[in-house]
């Protein structure tokens, strides 16, 4: 079991390094609406996944639904976000990609 865990740790660190090094290649084509909240969204969300997850899941989630999604990322997936980060990201998502927001570009 210890061998397995060592391998897992190595895999995780290689993956982090690789994803940080190359994260921009094709994801760079993704355009989200610019505003003061966008940098926090980019920092928090793209740590683990491309931002097309946001586009794809819009515009049908109300603020409570986005809040549930972001909280899942923190509580289950381990996103290192403060309460302020969560509030900023949820506000951004609700404003630009919430229920009734204009369709994504």
């Amino acid at each position, binding site marked *: 079991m210890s061998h397995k865990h060592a391998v897992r740790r190595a895999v995780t660190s290689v993956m982090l390094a690789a994803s940080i090094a190359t994260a921009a290649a094709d994801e760079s084509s993704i355009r989200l609406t610019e505003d003061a909240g966008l940098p926090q969204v980019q920092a928090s969300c793209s740590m683990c996944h491309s931002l097309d997850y946001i586009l794809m899941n819009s515009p049908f989630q109300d603020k409570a639904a986005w809040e549930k999604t972001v909280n899942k990322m923190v509580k*289950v997936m381990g996103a290192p976000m403060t309460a302020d980060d969560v509030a900023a990201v949820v506000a951004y998502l609700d404003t630009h990609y919430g229920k009734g927001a204009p369709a994504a570009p």
Partner: protein
Amino acid sequence: MRLICGANGGNMDRRKFILGSTSALTGGLFLPGIVGSATAQDLPAGAVASGILDALPGKRPLIKRSFRPPNYETPVSYFREAFTPNDAFYVRWHSAVPDVALADWRLRISGPGVKSEREFTHDTLRRKFKSAEVAAVNQCSGNRRGLFNPHVAGVQWGFGAMGNAVWSGVRLKDVLEDAGLTASALEVVGNGADAPTLTGPDFVKSLPMWKALDPDTLIAFEMNGEPLPTWNGAPARLVAPGWTATYWIKALADLTVTDKPFEGFWMKTAYRVPKGMFGASGFESQDTEQNSPITAIKVNSLVVDPAPGAVLERGKRIEVLGIAWDGGSGIRGIEVSLDGGKTWRDAKLQRDLGRYSWRQWRYAIKPEQAGAMTLMARAHARDGSTQTDTLVHNPAGYHHNVVQKVDYHVA
């Protein structure tokens, strides 16, 4: 071990098309406004806009749902073939794709449910156990989630998070029996070489003993006679025919036979359906009072050709091609209606490729009246089940098997 990170890699000249250009692939005629995808009107607007055609290395252009982790669905036009080409087969990962060389691959079998632990290389495994193969549909639990109304969060799949292939390898049963099962063996837990990005739960899934010991449940190394593509789980993946693809663990590394229900997040919390909504799960050790794990695929069908929105020539006889499948009882029949469901006629079933494979069907039409025309198709399984007329809405967006209505234009 090398990791393929999503669709990255800096290859900037990979072919990219907007979804609308699928008409070039399907060779059909389309009406303006509904170009490209049967699902375009039904998916969330943001999913339509971001669902570009994009080719991962070694794959043909598929419909990109997310770059990282890579989630790509197969355009319906590829379902004209009885077996889905490996390079057109959909891609679905929860985290970065592990790239494990066959020479480095090891399979470990352990846990309180086995009498002795085992470790195999590809060579020792293939030499020791008889080869086996099965033709089976591999369908993501969330296939068609994007069509849910109201929409639910998740990967917004259209019709293409599925494919049909011949899977070959060795029987899971033979490998487990070689290790020897104890009387307390309850579930077989499969883990792949993929790992969560941060501290989230590793993607690990279990099977009940009866399913693990089914002679059609395999550890597969090949699909359609070729080694599994890395995108589809090389060097080896579990094949649990009839069950949704969440159980078909890719880049399989460990099997643990437990004497207690496995409690990982992806079993206990995710991939669940409300208790009783879709019948018995067949996985009692994972049922709770509130919900059950999603398990067997529900009977379903899909019109493949002509594509929705096609312009049909008035007075010209054509054959509609479709597919139908279920969780393994097999397809008993397909009915087609051209009058909004008032009357139904049998379509012609094509060759039976096995009860877990989809079944192709054909239905001849000769449209006589110019204007709009709607075709409906409804599959019946041998277990007596049939497709639903209205959506059985559930929080995670599973088991969408509503009778399809396909609009054509006759001119």
